[in-house]
Each structure stands twice: as structure tokens, then as C-alpha cells.
């Protein structure tokens, strides 16, 4: 029953800690504007060259045009393909994208295992020869799990060695960052070992059934090691720098692409006005003489 409880814990920890981290960033005070162009939510006729509403005379008297489609398209390009790395650092993109694509596919694989688990709990076997949705789920699970595991393993160990042998990357990589990559590789490698004994991922669906029915997970040594490593990495990721999937949202949406002007009568004006009521929670202030002459004086 330990493995069942541990798996529950790791899933809850992954999503819970990720959401907690997002909430921490979300509740930070409204910051000063720090946008950077191109901003993809600008009007269709401007965003392709990085233009903005500031190009219009009396922009503040004109209705603001915001392209949510443009923003979503750019967001998807960045999320799904790591566009900036592809454009600016193609050689590194291949190995980095392999790792990230592996993770995306493994999310799909986990979702398919979950669906497969539900199908099996409802009485239909998910097998290679099953027809309809069960067969479809079987093959999607197989493809996403196999490709995801291989890509993650190759990507993680590839980046690990790239950071070892590339002099510049090596210089800036802390030991824990090597550890992070190796940890991901270890999870993928143990997964591949387990998978080699059960190509159809039936063990995965059995785990899902155990989770859905709150019953003990049956696992041999290799699977036990894999479950422990996978669970541990899921608990670890949101607490490490690997949680950049949270930070990336805020970096782009709340900083680089947030260019809403504070116009009279606008929603932003209300937010700005509200921010004037902020009461400091500490008595801390900056100490330079031009800011806090008293502090500078008392130090003398």
C-alpha cells in the first residue's frame, strides 16, 4: 500500500506545489511596466514588426486593439516548440527540445494510462486487439510512452553531457543542475527498463487501476525503483528551478507582454488607484542618504 500512497502523494505534491508557486507569483504586488517588443497581443497590423499602440497620435483617445489570438499563437509556439531557442540557438534546441517533447509526450502517456485505467475498471480490457476506444487508447499509450521515454532519456543525458563537455555551459552549471538532468535521465532510464519487459504498458494501467480503486500497487524491484524515482522527481520539480513552466507564464504574460496603459477611466486606472492604498508589512526601507536621511544620520 506504500507505493499507492506514495504515488498519490507525488501527484498531489506536483500539482499542489506548482499551483502554490504560481499563487506566490500571482499575489506579488503590481509591478512597474517592463514590457519588451514585439508584444504579440498588439494589433494585427503592428505586431509583425514589433509595433505598438504608441505609434498612433493620441493613442489614449482611441480604442485599444488587443489581439488575443496573436498572444495565444505566440504562447503556443513558445510552449510547444521553445521558439526562442529554435530561432536563436538551433544547435542546442535539438537536444533541449527532445527532452521537453519527451516530457510533453509522457504527460499524454499518463493521461492515456488514466483513461485506460478507467476503461479497465469499467470492465473492458485495453489490449492491442481491442477495438474502438480501448484499442485507440492502447496504441496512443504505446506510442506516447515509448517516444516520450526515449526522447526524455536521450534529451536529459544529452544535455547532461553537453553541459559537461561544453566549456561555457559547464562553467555556469551548478552541481545541482547536473543532478537535475541526471535525475530526469534516471527516471526515464528506469522507465525504459520496466517498459522493456511489458511493451504494452499494461503495468501502467494496473497502477492506474490500483490508484482508482485505492488498492495496493503490485510491483517487482525494477518497477518499485521506477515508481519511487518518478514520484520523487514529481515532488522535487516544483521546488526546483525545473518549475520554470510556472515562471515562464509570468515572465511573458505579466512582464514582457503586459503593456496595458493606465488611461483615465480604464480598468487599469482602478488597479493603480487600489495599489496606492498598499500598507507596508515591514518597517524596512532603503538606507541611502537621498532616500532615508535619518538612517544615514544614525549610522554616523
Amino acid at each position: 500500500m506504500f507505493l499507492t500512497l506514495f504515488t498519490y502523494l507525488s501527484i498531489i505534491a506536483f500539482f499542489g506545489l506548482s499551483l502554490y508557486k504560481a499563487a506566490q507569483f500571482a499575489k506579488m504586488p503590481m509591478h512597474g511596466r517592463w514590457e519588451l517588443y514585439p508584444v504579440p497581443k498588439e494589433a494585427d497590423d503592428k505586431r509583425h514588426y514589433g509595433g505598438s499602440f504608441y505609434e498612433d497620435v493620441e493613442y489614449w483617445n482611441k480604442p485599444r486593439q488587443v489581439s488575443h489570438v496573436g498572444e495565444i499563437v505566440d504562447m503556443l509556439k513558445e510552449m510547444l516548440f521553445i521558439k526562442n531557442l529554435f530561432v536563436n540557438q538551433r544547435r542546442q534546441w535539438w537536444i533541449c527540445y527532445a527532452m521537453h517533447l519527451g516530457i510533453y509526450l509522457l504527460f499524454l502517456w499518463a493521461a492515456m494510462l488514466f483513461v485506460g485505467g478507467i476503461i479497465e475498471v469499467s470492465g473492458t480490457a485495453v489490449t492491442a486487439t481491442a477495438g474502438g476506444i480501448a484499442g485507440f487508447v492502447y496504441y496512443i499509450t504505446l506510442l506516447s510512452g515509448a517516444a516520450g521515454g526515449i526522447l526524455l532519456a536521450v534529451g536529459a543525458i544529452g544535455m547532461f553531457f553537453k553541459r559537461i563537455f561544453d566549456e561555457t555551459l559547464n562553467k555556469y552549471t551548478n552541481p545541482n543542475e547536473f543532478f537535475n538532468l541526471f535525475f530526469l535521465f534516471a527516471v526515464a532510464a528506469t522507465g525504459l527498463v520496466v517498459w522493456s519487459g511489458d511493451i504494452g504498458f499494461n503495468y501502467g494501467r494496473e497502477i492506474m487501476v490500483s490508484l482508482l480503486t485505492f488498492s495496493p500497487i503490485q510491483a517487482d524491484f525494477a518497477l518499485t525503483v521506477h515508481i519511487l524515482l518518478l514520484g520523487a522527481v514529481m515532488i522535487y520539480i516544483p521546488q526546483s528551478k525545473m518549475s520554470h513552466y510556472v515562471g515562464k507564464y509570468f515572465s511573458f504574460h505579466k512582464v514582457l507582454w503586459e503593456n496595458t496603459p493606465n488611461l483615465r477611466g480604464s480598468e487599469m486606472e482602478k488597479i493603480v488607484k487600489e495599489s496606492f492604498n498598499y500598507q507596508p508589512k515591514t518597517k524596512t526601507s532603503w538606507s541611502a542618504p537621498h532616500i532615508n536621511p535619518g538612517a544615514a544620520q544614525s549610522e554616523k
Partner: protein
Amino acid sequence: MSKIRPQDMGKPVEQVCQIENLMPLPAPYDKPGMEPDFKAPKDSWKENYCATLDGFVGNDTLTRPKTKEEQDEMVKKFLSGLEKLFNADTNRGMLQPFMLSFEYCAKCNTCADACHVFKSSGEAEIYRPIFRSEVLRKIYQKHKKGGSLVNRFLGGDIDINYETVMRLGELAYRCNLCRRCAQTCPLGLDNGLLAREIRKIFSMEMGIAPKPLHESGTMKQLATGSSTGITKDAFLDLIEFMEDDLYELTGKKYKVPVDKKGADILLVHNAGEYMAWPENPAAFTIIMEEAGLNWTLSSDMIGYDNVNYGLFYDDVQGKKIGAAQLKAAKDLGVRRIIQAECGHAHKASMVSQDRIAVGADNIPRESCLPLLEELVVKKKVFKLDPSRNNFPVTLHDPCNIVRMMGIVQPQRNVLKAIAPQFREMTPHGVNNYCCGGGSGFAIMNSFNFTDFRNKVSSRMKFKQILNAFQDTIEDENTPKYVCAPCSNCKGAIRDILEFYQATAKFNVHYGGLVELIVNAMVQFDKPFMEFLRDDEDMF
């Protein structure tokens, strides 16, 4: 030298980095002897300031502590300031952007290729955008968690001593804050922001900031009304001189409206223009008057200087000046403020200080560039003869106006209408390179810092200028014009043209956009720009 790591910032070496392989320049500067060498730091500078980073001294208030107590105090104050960056009360305006950039860097090094300082220096390691950020991260990690083996594993492997602190204080002034690196970051992080946050620690906690920015910059502006030291009376005198000059040049009496209550437009210049480039406000005067606009200048405290150096190093100073500028506009009762050709003033007033006022205090601010486009291109208010500008013209995109505000096309549309030989730099628009004078470098002239600016931070811009004019660069009879609609950028470009003798040898000139517009006005007999006046035959 390339072996240097962020951990080495506190090591007891005479100089952490020596620039050795500057990026080559195109013809005619590809030959030996075409550029002056670096000036070695003097012993007195080494003794009193921080010349141990790269041999340059940019921060002229960062003085070397003499006693052990002073050294300890410097470290203590720095760490105290560092902690304040993480506090919602003391860094409220930048906490979220700062935390994101501080926490999530994957060290993919994509930013390095985007950085003109790093590339121009021949890829000197300390100028790699993540170098500075990584030093800051290591200091914080070590400070918060100590020097245990586990903490070294997590990146806290650096010596925190006064030399580390001083070198970081200098290194914060080796970045133009152009944020080109942030455009390329796959995680949307910003090493420019981190450089500015380091500057904030030094200024806001330790009272240490380059004199041209602080003492002779924001402090003087708050005390006298302008960072140039121009008082109200001096300003009014300058306006009179400008009116006289305009009469002499055009034969027409222009009366500059000052403190006109209830005007539609308050036009604000960088006050440095009145002294260094008076032809720029003069050209604006002609344009505003000939277009029949209801406009005014302000002689009120800070109302006649749109400069706000707080943008470069200090949030508190930035806010004080921003609020004073809005007050001057409100007191005049104008409908809108138009920022003249000054990049950082654009960003400071319209972007950085956009969250400091509401209601009637929040006077709308606009750029002059869309207005110029409307007058010249859309409404065709003036009779213009583009052949008067029939010489090679290229455009510099000020980072603050273009990359950080998205004002890209208006200035191009104007140039296409008035300059037949207009050609773009490569790259341009939001991807353009900084002039090398950004974030205050244009006015920082202490010790040998000008060498760093002219030979390193402005090098990429000079290369772009030379490339844009390759077809005529060695033809000294053909004047060439770099249009830079920004005071700081003009300052940096003026200095590189002088340093490399590009004006003297190759007839390369620089100036703003409005000068070109007025130069094309058919109503005036004489060319508006001085460098054209000796050779009127070209018309």
C-alpha cells in the same frame, strides 16, 4: 583569461579581465592604426577606485575602502541592500520581474550572442550577460545559506568580500540595459533587469552611483530643475537665443510659446539639447509653428527637462522626477505632453512612470514621432523637397523608443518621404543594437570609461553605421547622415564619430529627425543643417 568563472569575482588578482580581441570593424577601419588604443588605468585610480575588474573606472563614487572596518561595512551594506530586492515593501515596483529573472535562468547562454558588449569585446567572459547575474545569484545563495558543502552544491560557491562587491558594482555599469538579450531568452528572463537591480542596491542602499547620473543628474535636476543645471532664468535666456538664431537662419521671426496656460501640447525636450544641439529644439519650433499647433514649453521646475536618469539606476529618484514632470504639465493645464527626441524620457514618462498617477494628475504622454508622421506623411502639412536631403541617410533605433515601446514605423515613414537615399542598418527596428551610450553611458565620462564606451559598448553601432554607408564611406565629398532621434544616442554617436574621426575623414554626420524635415522645407533658402551650408551647390 577565458577560463574566468563567476566564482572568481572575489579572487585577489590585479585585474579580472583584460580585453584582448576586439571585434573587427569593417572598411575603412579594418586597417591597422585606424583607432586609438585603450588608456591604461593610472595608479591613483587603482588605489582609490575599482580598476580591478577590467581596468576601466565607470562608477566614480565607488571608492575603495581603506580600513578593515570600511571593507566589512561595504559588504554588510551590500548584503542588506540585496535582501531588500526580495522584499515586497522595498522593491514593490520590480519584485515580480526581479524574482522571475533571478530564479529561473537555465543558463542556456542564448542571450550572449544578442549582447553587443559581449560580442564587441571579443567575447570577454565578464561581459557575458549571465556572468553578472550568476555572480549575484551565488552571493545571495552563499549569504542566505552559508558555505556548507550542500550549499556549494546549490551554487553558493563564491567568496563574498569587498572586492567581489566592488567589482560587481563596476560590472553593473558594463551593460547598456538595452534588453536585447531578453528578447532572445526562451524563458523570457532579463539580465538587463538584474544589472539594473544591482545598480539599485548600490544607489538606494549604499548611496553609490556614478556622479553624472546621481549627483550631477537626478539630484541636480530635483534641486535646480534640470540635470544640466539650467535654471528657469537661464532656460528663458536660452529660448531667446534660440529665437535670434532662428531669425538669423530663416529670416523669419519665430516666437516660442512658453508657459502658455491651457495649450493643447506641452512639448518637453531633453534640456541638454538647448546646449549641445540647439538646432533640434529650433527645428521643433519651426515644425510646431508652421503646422499651426497650439503648443507651449514650460519654464516651471523640471517642466523644461524631460530627462529622468532614475530610469537607469534608482526607482525612488525616477518616481520623484516623474511626478514633478506631471505636476508641471498639470499646473499649465495642457491637454497632453509630447516627448521630443529623447529615448529614455519617452520610456520614463510613458512606461516606467505609468503607474504613479491617476485621474487629472495623469496627463496623457505621447511620442513626437507619430505626430511628425502625421504632419509630414499623412496630412502633408509642409511643402517639402526631398532632394534637399539627397545624401545617404541611415536610422538609429533608440532602444527605449523602439524595443521598449514599439514605436517603429513613424520615423521610418517620415524618412522615406524626405530622404531619397535612406537605407536601414542591419539589424534594425526592434532588433537593432544599442548606440552604446544607453543607461547613462553617454554622459559617464569619468577616468577612462570613455574608452570602454567608444571602443566596446558603441563598437557594434559604429560597425552598423559603417556597413550602412559602405557604398560611399570612403568618398569624403559625400556627406552621410546618421539620424538618431534621441539625445543620449546622439551623445554616444557624436563621441564615436569624433573618437574614430569619422566626420573629419569620411564626412559622416549625425543629428535628429526634425532637422532633416526642416532641411527639406522649400520655404527656406539656406540648408538647415550646418554641415550642408558650405556646399549649397548640391541643391
